[in-house]
């Protein structure tokens, strides 16, 4: 529209106002999403101006893009560039169209042209970064995205930068980026969930929970957040709470394999094996390549002493995940019970070689060897097990499965190793079972059962918080959120540990207050 005004007026004085008015009309319709009316106005304008009205062409191009007709929109944007070669915006649109068509190199060239006209445009930097990313020029991409951030911070830029770090396998850097992103944009559920998932990956459960919980307050039915949060609840044994959460999402995601997998394992945790198998088989039908589902099917069938089926599922799993020691261990258990001792041994060998941390692997191998009369071999594995237990105790304190402890003591006794020095703590409450790799509080400050429920409750109220968001800064409604959950989880390694919870929660409270005030 600006360009129209700059044109010399002499002969067309009476027409100009009409053109201007129509441009305004086009603009209005577009903003209001009256696309049909918009198209009519555009058509009229183009007829009047014999196709020379830049703005009309521009908006038509935008409309094409919205409809997914990218090629057409590209051509129109190119027309705009011809009509007005000095507009950086036109070039940007051409470049964006090229990008949407997957023509990343060409897009970069045009963006560079646009940059010549307008140096400090964050959008250009951002999009250059994204194009470079697709071309796998990661370093360039990172530079450009950082440039963009310096000019102007934006959720998308952070997200892209984070994604690149992840593509490079640099989880720590990714977390840094997402943290900044979340600071900048604390209500973006996508960012919150991604960050939560990253913390979960690292085993930083408190932080993971914090961010996932936040995501759920803004979007209580956020599938990604629920899946991740639910899996955390399951890990802590809160199967019923997890199931309730899952049921909510199951309506909108009826055929989600990970969901059915987790639901199945909730039932497993509650010892409802038939239900577990039903769910797991459905998950497997929908996602036959997913090794985790096959692992679980194997595990459940082993628990039910259906060794042939277990073998079937586990050997399939091994095909998809050939370097997981635990799978070979389970396979060995199946083989043992199918009376194929030779292959069971081979499987254990493989398991022990691949998994150097899990004491359960060596324990079970020891059991087999002992039962086969190989005292020496059994002893060797037993000592290996002790080593692993010690290593684990040093790096993080954890609860071992009481059944494992019990069996280990029995094996020790049978092998006459004397009073076992490995197991210094008393057998834990049977509810607090953890996987060997999951860190948690030491026995001296044994968390009461209640705290697990607190986790579940906190999550529940966090999920329900969204409904009460309209309340002004009422203490009751916001209380569950402002305090970090009272989980006695072991602090994770990281420099910013001690101060940030309070600091960030202060900031959050401020932001929330101001946001609520403006509503």
């Amino acid at each position, binding site marked *: 529209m600006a360009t129209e005004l700059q044109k010399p007026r002499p002969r067309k004085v009476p027409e100009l106002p009409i053109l201007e008015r129509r441009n305004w009309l086009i603009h209005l319709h577009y903003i209001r999403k009256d696309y049909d009316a918009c198209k009519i106005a555009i058509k009229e304008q183009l007829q009047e101006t014999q196709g020379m009205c830049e703005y009309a062409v521009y908006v038509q191009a935008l409309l094409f893009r919205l409809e997914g007709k990218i090629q057409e929109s590209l051509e129109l944007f190119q027309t705009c560039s011809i009509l007005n070669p000095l507009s950086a915006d036109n070039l940007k649109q051409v470049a964006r169209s090229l990008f949407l068509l997957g023509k990343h190199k060409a897009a970069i060239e045009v963006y560079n042209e646009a940059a010549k006209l307008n140096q400090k445009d964050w959008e250009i930097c951002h999009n250059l970064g994204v194009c470079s990313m697709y071309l796998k020029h990661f370093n360039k991409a990172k530079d450009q995205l950082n440039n963009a951030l310096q000019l102007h911070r934006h959720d998308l830029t952070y997200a892209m930068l984070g994604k690149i770090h992840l593509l490079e396998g640099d989880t720590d850097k990714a977390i840094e980026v997402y943290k900044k992103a979340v600071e900048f944009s604390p209500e973006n559920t996508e960012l919150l969930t991604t960050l939560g998932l990253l913390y979960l990956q690292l085993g930083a459960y408190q932080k993971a929970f914090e961010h996932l919980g936040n995501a759920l307050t803004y979007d209580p039915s956020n599938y990604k957040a629920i899946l991740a949060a639910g899996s955390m609840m399951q890990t802590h044994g809160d199967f019923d709470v997890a199931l309730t959460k899952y049921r909510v999402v199951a309506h909108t995601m009826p*055929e989600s394999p990970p969901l059915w997998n987790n639901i199945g394992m909730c039932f497993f945790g509650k010892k409802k094996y038939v239900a577990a198998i039903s769910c797991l088989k459905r998950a497997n039908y929908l996602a036959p390549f997913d090794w985790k589902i096959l692992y679980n099917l194997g595990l459940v069938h082993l628990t039910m002493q259906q060794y042939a089926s277990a073998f*079937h599922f586990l050997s399939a799993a091994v095909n998809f995940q050939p370097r997981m020691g635990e799978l070979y261990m389970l396979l060995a258990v199946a083989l043992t019970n199918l009376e194929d001792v030779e292959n069971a041994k081979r499987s254990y060998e493989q398991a022990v070689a691949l998994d150097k941390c899990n004491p359960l692997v060596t324990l079970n191998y020891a059991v087999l060897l002992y039962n086969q009369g190989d005292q020496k071999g059994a002893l060797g594995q037993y000592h290996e097990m002790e080593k692993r237990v010690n290593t684990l105790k040093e790096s993080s304190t954890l609860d071992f499965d009481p059944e494992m402890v019990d069996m280990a003591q029995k094996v020790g006794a049978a092998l006459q190793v004397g009073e076992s020095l490995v197991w210094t703590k008393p057998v834990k409450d049977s509810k607090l079972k953890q996987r060997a790799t999951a860190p948690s509080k030491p026995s001296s400050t044994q968390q009461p059962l209640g705290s697990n429920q607190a986790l579940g409750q906190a999550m529940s109220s966090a999920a329900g918080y969204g409904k009460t968001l309209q309340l002004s800064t009422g203490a009751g409604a916001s209380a569950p959120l402002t305090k970090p959950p009272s989980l006695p989880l072991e602090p994770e390694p990281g420099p910013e540990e001690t101060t940030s919870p309070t600091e960030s929660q202060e900031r959050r409270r401020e932001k929330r207050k101001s946001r609520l005030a403006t509503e």
Partner: protein
Amino acid sequence: TGLEMEPLLQAWSCFRRRKFQLCPDLCSQLLEKSPGHQEPDSEFTVSQAAWILKTRALTEMVYVDEIDVDQEGIAEMMLDENAIAQVARPGTSLKLPGTSHGGGPTPAVRPVTQSGRPITGFVRPSTQSGRPGTMEQAIRTPRTAHTARPITSASGRYVRLGTASMLTNPEGPFINLSRLNLAKYAQKPKLAKALFEYIFHHENDVKNVNLRSTVAHIGEYPFTLFTSKSIYKNALDLAALATEHAQYKDWWWKVQIGKCYYRLGLYREAEKQFKSALKQQDMVDTILYLAKVYFRLDQPLTALHLFKQGLDRFPGEVTLLCGIARIYEEMNNIPLAAEYYREVLKQDNTHVEAIACIGSNHFYSDQPEIALRFYRTRRLLQMGVYNCQLFNNLGLCCFYAQQYDMTLTSLERALSLAENEEEAADVWYNLGHVAVGIGDLNLAYQCFKLTLANNNDHAEAYNNLAVLEMRRGHVEQARALLQTASSLAPHMYEPHFNFAALSDQVGDLQRSYIAAQKSKEAFPDHVDTQQLIKQLKQHFAML
């Protein structure tokens, strides 16, 4: 054996023992001995009897249950004046299956046919569920028929048109209709009835039928372009005369007239005849014929009503129960269809159709063990069902029910029983799934390749091969395979969705969007497609 049977008696005995080839020969000998053997007169009762017998035997040879048969040529389908306007209330039309009622398996679980309905457990030579919407689809149908409906539903017509007499009378037609005095026959009920059936099932009104001239070839498959309506005119003329002679009191002729009208596409007239016949004599068969008329008029609810009322008068009648079940299935109401099939089984536990449909419902509802019970029932074998399909299904059920020892033997047997390459292809395809299930992707790859070797148009195999290629990182191969799959089977959502996902991954968002829209059309409730479209729209909306 000094006693020689009276020749007519011999012929009759052959007929009774279903020796339909031998019987007419014997009759011919008899007829040759009498003068005017083509036109029996009232004085020669033996030759009359022989004539009737021969006529009936020839009819039996090519007789198929009329009720089961429901065939059209392409042009009829396209020019069907009875085609109901597209705007019908949901749940009232067979052409708009709508969404499945109350939780049947979605296309993510159970494969669908080109009409968007889930594949059924049983197939009859009927076209309704396979009715293509456009001429293009109709022409393409034969090549992709294997996922939708059997070849013979289209080519059954081909068989009937002139070939019936080819099978029975290679030397030339036994009865030359142009020389018959229909009025005379109309007055002799027994002769008339035999003659009528002969005409109706032989359709050899056209002299010296040359198959190729009446049948077009599209691709490799013969396809009738039109019905020769004049064929039924003769039958109709005879029936009209006969019914008049019977003073409109013979319900049997009314039904035959109805059948002729049906074949001529005059459904309202057919309806009148059947209704009139029913008033005179309540017969299950007539009800079934009338229901077919309503089916053709796209009035499934009327048909349902008719059946249900029929059940009041004929409680527990299997054919009526089955009719109801079929309608519900056509209307994509799987739960109700299953209910009625179960009723059928209560009455007749050898009913193959019910067994097959319930079995397949169970399989696709995560109950392969129960499905196995159905397919394994000795009844099926007793009923003579021993074919590729049965063993294929047994094999699949065994696998998913974790009876691994039986899986491969069943599937092997299915392969050995395959009657053509298309059937073999399907078995290889399922073997591919078994291979995936045990984690042997190389084997799966081979199986899907073998599927294509047997049937070069197997869309599902192309799709699955594409998925395997993607896992190996061969993006270009995967892309090409998906394009083939989606063009072969545009009603399947999987290739469209996969193509959209692939395009999205490489950044070609336009192609991704177009493919995602196609996926949505095929399967509107597919969550992953919806999310992909949402993401793409966000990209497009950003300035």
